[in-house]
C-alpha cells in the first residue's frame, strides 16, 4: 500500500505532547499477555433462514411430514429435534392433533359445511371471497382473516391459531401464501414474509448461541462459535477473566454479545448497564443538557454543532470556544486542552466533599457531560461517515485520485468513531471508580486521547476535496497517534480492572 511509508516516519507524527505520554513500563503493565479470542460468525437473516429450513427438512425426512408442519412442531419443542422425534415415536400421527396441525377425526366430522350465504361472521358483510385454513373449514372473509393475522403477526407471534376460538389449528406458511395471493399490490406487506421473520426470532431466542444485532432495524445475527482456547469453557468464565465478547454483525455494527448493547469496550457489562440506566433515569440530566444547540457564551447567539469537533466558532461574533466547557478556545489550544478532567486541585476539592449527595450529583454530571458530548459527536461523525462516499467520489472524479489512495479518508473516519467510543465509555467507568492515583493516570490518558480526537475531527470539517487531499498526511498522522493513545487508554483500563488498581464501587 502506497500509504504505508508514512506510518513509520516519526518526524511526520504530530506528537507535540509526546513527553507527557504515560510511561507504560513504570506501571508493570504486561502487554496483551494471552489474549483469548471469542469466536463468532455473522449471519444475515437469509443465511439463518436456510439453516432453519435445513433443520425442519431434517426432521421432516424422519417423520414423514412437510417442512411447514415441522416448522410448527419444532417451535412447540424449543427447536429440539430429539424431543420432536421422541414424541413422534410415542404418539405417532396424534402429534399432529396435539400441536394444531390436524383436527381429530371426531372434530373433522363436525366441521361446518361451506356456507352458501357468504356472510362473514366478523364484518357481517356479504362477500364473494371466503377463506379458511387448509386444515379446517372455519370460513371468514379474506379481508377479515388478513386483518386478524396481520395484527397477530405484528405482535411477533409465530404460532397463530385459526380465528374460530374453539379451533386449535395452526396457521401454516402455505395458508399465508394463499392469503397473500389476494393482495398482489405493493402496499401489502406479505404475511408470509412477516411470519418467516417471526419464526426466525423464535429460533434465535431459543438458542443462547445466537443473538440479534441490537442496532435499530438491523436484521443481522451473530453466532457464537466457542473460544480460541479450551481453557475457557463458558461465556461467564470469559467475562470473569476480564474479557469482552465484542462481535460484529454482517452490516458492520459492533456490539457486546454478553449484554447485547453497543460495543462498550473497555468497561465491563454491568458498569455499562448501570450507567445507561442511570443516565436514562436521571431527570436532572435530561434537563441539564439540551441536545444539539448551545448559546454562544459571548453574544448568546444559538449555535448548532455540525460536526464532531469541539472547537466552536460563533458565526455571529466569531468568538472561539470549547463546546464542552464553553471557555475560550485559545486557552485550550496552545498547551493542551485540559478538557477531559478537572485540574488536580479541583479533583482534590471534589473528593473531600464527595460524601454529600450534591457532590455526588456534581460528580456524576461531570462525567456525564463528557460522556454525552462524545455520544452526540459520535452521532455527527456517523452522519459524516454516511456522506463520506460521495466525497470520496468527488476526489476520484475531480482530482483523478485512485480508490485505494482515498482509503486514508475512510480509515481515519472509522478510527475516529472507534476512539470516540472508547473515550466515551471510559468516562462512565470513572464515575464508578474510587478516586486514587491510578484514576489520575487514566484521566491523563483520557486527556491525551481526547486531544487527538479533537484534532482529527477538526480536520474532518474540511469539505473541499482538494483541501482534504492536501491534508492527507495530516489525516494519516493524526489518526495513527490517536490509535496509539486509544490503545494505551484501553490497556491501562484493562490492567487497572484486572489488578484492581481501579476499585469499582
Amino acid at each position, binding site marked *: 500500500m502506497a500509504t504505508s511509508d508514512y506510518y513509520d516516519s516519526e518526524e511526520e507524527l504530530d506528537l507535540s505532547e509526546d513527553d507527557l505520554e504515560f510511561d507504560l513500563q513504570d506501571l508493570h503493565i504486561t502487554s496483551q499477555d494471552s489474549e483469548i479470542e471469542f469466536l463468532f460468525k455473522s449471519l444475515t437473516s437469509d443465511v439463518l433462514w436456510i439453516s432453519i429450513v435445513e433443520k425442519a427438512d431434517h426432521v421432516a425426512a424422519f417423520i414423514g411430514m412437510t417442512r411447514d408442519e415441522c416448522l410448527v412442531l419444532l417451535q412447540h419443542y424449543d427447536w429440539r429435534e430429539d424431543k420432536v422425534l421422541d414424541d413422534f415415536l410415542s404418539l405417532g400421527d396424534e402429534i399432529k392433533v396435539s400441536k394444531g396441525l390436524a383436527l381429530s377425526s371426531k372434530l373433522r366430522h363436525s366441521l361446518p359445511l361451506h356456507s352458501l350465504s357468504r356472510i362473514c361472521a366478523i364484518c*357481517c*358483510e356479504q362477500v364473494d371471497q371466503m377463506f379458511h385454513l387448509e386444515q379446517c373449514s372455519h370460513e371468514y372473509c379474506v379481508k377479515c382473516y388478513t386483518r*386478524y393475522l396481520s395484527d397477530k403477526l405484528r405482535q411477533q407471534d409465530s404460532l397463530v391459531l385459526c380465528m374460530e376460538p374453539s379451533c386449535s389449528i395452526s396457521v401454516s406458511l402455505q395458508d399465508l401464501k394463499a392469503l397473500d395471493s389476494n393482495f398482489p399490490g405493493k402496499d401489502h406487506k406479505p404475511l408470509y414474509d412477516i411470519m418467516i421473520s417471526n419464526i426466525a426470532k423464535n429460533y434465535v431466542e431459543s438458542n443462547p448461541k445466537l443473538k440479534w444485532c441490537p442496532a435499530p432495524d438491523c436484521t443481522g445475527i451473530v453466532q457464537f462459535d466457542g473460544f480460541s482456547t479450551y481453557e475457557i469453557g463458558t461465556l461467564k468464565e470469559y467475562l470473569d477473566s476480564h474479557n469482552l465478547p465484542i462481535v460484529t454483525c454482517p452490516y458492520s455494527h459492533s456490539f457486546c454479545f454478553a449484554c447485547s448493547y453497543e460495543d462498550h469496550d473497555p468497561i465491563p457489562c454491568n458498569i455499562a448497564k448501570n450507567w445507561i440506566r442511570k443516565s436514562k433515569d436521571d431527570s436532572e440530566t435530561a434537563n441539564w443538557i439540551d441536545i444539539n444547540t448551545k448559546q454562544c457564551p459571548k453574544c448568546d447567539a444559538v449555535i448548532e454543532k455540525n460536526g464532531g469537533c469541539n472547537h466552536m466558532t460563533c458565526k455571529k461574533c466569531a468568538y472561539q470556544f470549547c463546546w464542552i466547557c464553553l471557555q475560550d478556545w485559545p486557552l485550550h489550544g496552545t498547551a493542551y486542552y485540559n478538557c477531559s478532567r478537572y485540574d488536580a486541585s479541583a479533583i482534590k476539592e471534589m473528593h473531600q466533599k464527595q460524601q454529600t449527595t450534591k457532590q455526588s450529583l456534581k460528580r456524576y454530571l461531570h462525567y456525564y457531560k463528557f460522556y454525552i458530548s462524545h455520544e452526540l459527536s459520535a452521532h455527527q461523525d456517523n452522519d459524516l461517515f454516511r456522506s463520506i462516499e460521495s466525497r470520496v467520489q468527488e476526489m476520484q472524479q475531480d482530482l483523478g485520485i485512485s480508490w485505494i489512495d482515498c482509503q486514508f479518508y475512510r480509515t481515519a473516519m472509522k478510527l475516529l468513531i472507534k476512539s470516540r467510543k472508547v473515550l466515551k465509555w471510559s468516562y462512565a467507568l470513572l464515575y464508578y471508580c474510587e478516586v486514587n492515583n491510578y484514576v489520575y493516570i487514566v484521566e491523563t490518558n483520557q486527556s491525551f486521547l481526547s486531544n487527538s480526537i479533537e484534532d482529527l475531527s477538526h480536520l474532518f470539517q474540511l469539505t473541499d476535496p482538494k483541501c482534504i487531499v492536501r491534508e492527507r498526511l495530516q489525516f494519516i498522522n493524526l489518526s495513527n497517534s490517536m490509535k496509539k493513545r486509544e490503545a494505551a487508554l484501553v490497556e491501562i483500563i484493562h490492567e487497572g480492572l484486572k489488578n484492581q488498581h481501579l476499585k469499582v464501587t
Partner: protein
Amino acid sequence: MSFKGKRLAKEYKDLVSNQVPGITCEATDSFDTLVIQVSVLDNPLYIDDSYRLRFIFSDKYPFSPPQVQFIDKIPIHPHIYSNGHICLNILGNDWTPSQTVASISMSVQSMLASNNLNQRPPDDDNYVKHAPENPQHSSFYYHDDTV
C-alpha cells in the same frame, strides 16, 4: 354504517332473539357501550343475584377486544377484582375477532358457575390501588384456568 356498527347491530339482534338462560341484554341506544345482566342459577354463591357486565367498544372492534368489567355489585371470585376488573385470557392475549358479546358473557357466566371459592384474587388490594381505569392496560398474569 361503520364496520363496528354493522357487526354490533347484528350481535344485538342475536342477543335479543336467541335467549340464553341467565344472560339478558339491557336496552341501548348507542353501540359504544352495552350492559349484559348475568345470573348463575346453579351455584349457591351467586344464586340470589344478577350481575351487570359492562362492555365498551373501541372503533377497532371486533379486531380489538371490548373493555369488559362488572359494575355496581361485584361477584366474589378469585379472578374478579373488587373494582370489577376480570382476569380472563380471551379479553386480552387470546382474543379473536370471532368472539362475541354473547360468547364472552357465557365464558364469564361459566367462570362463575364453576367457582366454589368465596374469595378475591390474592393481589386484590394492591391491584385495585394501582389499577388503570381500563382493564386492558393491565397486563394480567392469567391465573390458572382450572380454579
